[in-house]
């Protein structure tokens, strides 16, 4: 979707302000929002792409006005309600008014922590040969799906060079539609700064994205 989350190349957000000796969490609720999100994500009810899509579905004014972990929390509440794991009246009173539903992977317990704190693999077996090879010129397709995609707007329609091939991976665009993992080849595609930003681009700049094969066409 052409949402507010797709920020590459926008102006007006001001300076980056690094915080010296930044703590891992600034407030306790941030830590809890992170841990609850990860724990419920591990229940197998939704996958990582559906979770990202959940954040993108926040209204743009809410997205912009909320801190990072607040966005996580709002997304978590939305996803739990949507999957009927909690109900609006539970939230209204701040207690469970009825027992929970069975979770695919059961209750999240201490021995699950190690599994959740190591990245899983989204690599899958290939079903067809890769269409492109390193060195090929490709164009990022000018597409505007109304749902989740990992093709940022700022590269669409632009020509780049395939640099790396990462194997086949779960295709987020399909997962969020409930159409299964539909694994696709994943490439690093590199664009010249001038191709993306015009003649006044920073000299010598190159930018790459990781693009699933359906995002690309021969150039």
């Amino acid at each position, binding site marked *: 979707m052409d949402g507010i989350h*797709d*920020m*590459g*190349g*926008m*102006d007006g*957000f*001001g300076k*980056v302000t*690094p*915080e010296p000796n*930044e703590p*891992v969490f*600034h*407030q306790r*609720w941030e*830590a*809890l929002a992170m841990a*609850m999100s990860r*724990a*419920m994500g591990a229940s197998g009810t939704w996958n990582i792409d559906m979770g*990202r899509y959940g954040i993108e579905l926040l209204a743009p004014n809410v997205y*912009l006005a909320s801190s990072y972990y607040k966005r996580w*929390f709002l997304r978590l*509440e939305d996803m739990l309600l949507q999957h009927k794991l*909690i109900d609006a009246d539970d*939230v209204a009173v*701040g*207690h469970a008014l009825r027992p*929970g539903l069975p979770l695919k992977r059961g*209750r*999240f*317990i*201490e021995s*699950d*922590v190690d599994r*959740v*704190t*190591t*990245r*899983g693999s*989204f*690599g899958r077996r290939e079903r067809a040969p890769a269409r492109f090879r390193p060195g090929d010129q490709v164009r990022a397709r000018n597409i505007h799906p109304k749902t989740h995609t*990992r093709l940022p707007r700022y590269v669409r329609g632009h020509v780049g060079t395939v640099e*790396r091939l*990462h194997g086949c*991976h779960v295709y*987020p665009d399909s997962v969020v539609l409930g159409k299964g993992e539909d694994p696709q080849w*994943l490439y690093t595609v*590199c664009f010249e700064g001038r191709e*993306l*930003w015009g003649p006044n681009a*920073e000299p*010598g*700049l*190159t*930018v790459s994205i*990781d*693009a*699933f094969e359906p995002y690309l066409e021969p150039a």
Partner: protein
Amino acid sequence: MELRVRALQTILVEKGYVEPAALDRMIEAYETKIGPHIGARVIAKAWADPAFKQSLLADATRAVGTLGRVGDHLVAVENTPQIHNMVVCTLCSCYPWDVLGLPPVWYKSFPYRSRAVKDPRSVLADFGVSLPASTQIRVWDSTAETRFLVVPMRPADTDGWSEEKLALLVTRDSMIGTGLPKKPTEVC
């Protein structure tokens, strides 16, 4: 927010979805165990051991896996006098948690996500970093499940340093590409 988040925690616990101790343990892991010191150890080893560096650049998941737990699909990219690498996630906050821990607020901020792919030199200036005009900047936008770790250049005057001592020079930001390693005089 504190009350709202606590209330949801109560609901999840009462419904039997999560064990409170498991949440505490996950938080503790990110506060005390999983952080940039893991990445720093990897970089220091790459600086000290050319064979390890080669395997790191060829397959970072496998190379880092020889040192400890790491998930898929890690890619290490090397800075040189010609190329400076910088990592961003314009769409959200993708970051190599396994080797750097949770991302800092600035990495997830709108200014960084919007400007890194377009004006990286001005972003570097916000960090007090200025690179020679002859250095080309390469920005990696983490748009899939690939995670990037920058291998910064080894500082001069560190010949014969142990890996443990070299690791002290490696900052979190130098592994994202918004900073440079410390100078030897800063740790001696």
